[in-house]
Each structure stands twice: as structure tokens, then as C-alpha cells.
């Protein structure tokens, strides 16, 4: 698992935000089209792609995309 592929999958869950708008440092909760349905989609994508079941609280605790990536990686290991 590597960060660029993760960001591609992450961007795929948005309608308006594209991969060009995102970097590991992006504070994703502040994106214009972030919503509860996008949050659920990201949880579902992580389950489907990486086999990791993330809780709502773990989503909320991650500030940047890098934080979320680290959380997922920790749960894979």
C-alpha cells in the first residue's frame, strides 16, 4: 500500500474534488464536498480495497489524508 494509490482511491469518493486537489497534508474534513455520505464511502472503500474496517471515530480522529493512511496501515500490520 502506498500513499499515491491511496489518494487516488480517496479522491474517487468525491464528486467535485479531484486527485489534483489532494495531497497527504490535505485536511480533508474541510473540503467543500466532504459530507457524511462521503465519509461512509471512504470507510467502504478502505474496507473493499484494503480489507480494513474503520470506525467512525477513527475517521473523525484523522486530520489529514496522511493521518488516515497511517491509521489504515497500522491496522493492516
Amino acid at each position, binding site marked *: 500500500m502506498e500513499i499515491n494509490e491511496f489518494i487516488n482511491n480517496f479522491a474517487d469518493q468525491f464528486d467535485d474534488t479531484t486527485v489534483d486537489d489532494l495531497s497527504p497534508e490535505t485536511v480533508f474534513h474541510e473540503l467543500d464536498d466532504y*459530507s457524511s455520505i462521503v465519509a461512509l464511502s471512504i470507510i*467502504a472503500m478502505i474496507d473493499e480495497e484494503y480489507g480494513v474496517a474503520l470506525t467512525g471515530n477513527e475517521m473523525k480522529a484523522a486530520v489529514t489524508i496522511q493521518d488516515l493512511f497511517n491509521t489504515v496501515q497500522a491496522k493492516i500490520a
Partner: protein
Amino acid sequence: MEYNPFSLAGKTILITGAAGGIGRATSVECAKLGATLILTDINEAGLQETQGLLEGDGHRYLVANLTSQEALDALVADLPSLDGFVSNAGVTKPLPVKFINPDDLERIMSINTFAPIYLTQRLCRKKKFNAGASIVFTVSVGGIYTTAPGNAMYGASKGALQVFMKNVALEMAPKVRCNSVNPGMVNTNLAGRSYSDEDKARDLETYPLKRYGEPRDVALAIVYLLSDASSWVTGHSLVIDGGRRGRRRRLCQRPANGGYGSLGGGLRAAKRYARRARLL
């Protein structure tokens, strides 16, 4: 004074999903009110625990996987005549529409929808219901009265069950009554981990009575529908949701900066009122 129109004394009642949550609470209350129970679930340890909580004698449990046709046949063959049937077993998994997949959809539909339909079909076919018997389905407000992100599969499964309930009520009258309870969010293991504490706290604010339900809140409504106190009630859905359904709410929550969502909701509501006004 012994007067109690909600008494279940002398009634034999089958309860599915009895190993926990609303099914367990319903079992406990029904036993307190004098019913003799047959509990079923796929989880034997949970069934034993529930049985240990019951007042009175003569209760038993049957472990069954209700999604298997053979298991349904075996279960029904083992049953005495019934005065009540509470179909309560249910599962969910919150997923957005675009992540719906055959594994999850078929699991949810087979447990929440097909199993209750097939079990009811067999109980009717095998003439297991005594005159005056009562069937209660645990449906939900979700899917029927409310929508929430990620709730499409669960809502569809419960919506189908709601429609089935009304048809059973029609076909089985006047001998057997059939109703549903439709709870809002209840504190059971079903309440998902996909929502954060912050999301839950915000959701809780939409309940006028300012708390989620407890299994016993729903169990006591089921008791009413099982008892002769409700003997002129059939085809009805009893909403138990702390007043939540009475509130208008945007269909899909957006963060504070997505204000256009509420404007759209306002326009839709205005059009709805306009249509109603013309009808009146």
C-alpha cells in the same frame, strides 16, 4: 386488584432473534406477563442467557438458521400451536449505494426480509395459529419514514417487510392479527460503529425526547400488540421513536458550509405543501 388488559397469561409465543437486543427484552417482558415462550436464534449461548432471565416455567429454545429452508421446516415441525409470533431477527451494514454488493445485500435481505416471509408462510400453511393469535414484525422507521446515509440496503429490506405485514393482516383476518413496531435508533449491538460519536451526538439532537430507545421501550409496545388489549388493531405500524418522525430533517446531512442543501429542502417542502393545499 388483578385487572391487567395486557396480560399474556395462557399464551404461547414464538420469538425470533431472542438471543439479544429487542428480542431478549421482549422475551423477558412477555414471560413476566405470563406467556410461555419458544425462543429462537442462531446464537445458542445468547439464547441460554435469555432463557435464564425468564420468569415462570415451560419456556424453551430452538437454535435455528432462519435463512435455511430446511431449518425453517424443522423449526415449524417442532412448534406447538401459537397465540403469538414476534419476528424480530435483523442485521444491518451501513454502505453507500455505490458500494452495494451481492454478499452484503443478500445477507441483509435474507435475514431481514426473506426469513420472516418464509417463516410466516409456513406458520400459516401448517395452521400453527390459534384463533385470536397476533403476529408482530419488528420493522423500523428507517426506510419507511426516514432515510439516512448508508441505509439503503437496510431500508429496502425493512420497507419490503412493512408491505408484507399489511398483506398478512388482510389475508389472515379475522382469525389472526398482524402488526409492526417501527423503532427509531435503539441502543443494541445493531447500532453501527461506522458513525462517529460526534455524528451520533448530532443525530440524538433530532430526537425530541433527547435519548435513543432502550430495548424495553420496544418490547412493551410489542406486548401491547400481542395482548388482547389490541384486539381491534391489525395492519398497523406503531412508531416508537422518541418523537423523531415528527421533525423535518434534510435527507442528507452536509457540513455547515453546504448551505444549498437546506435551501433545496425548503423548496421541496414548499412544493409539497402547495400540492397538498390544492388537494384540500
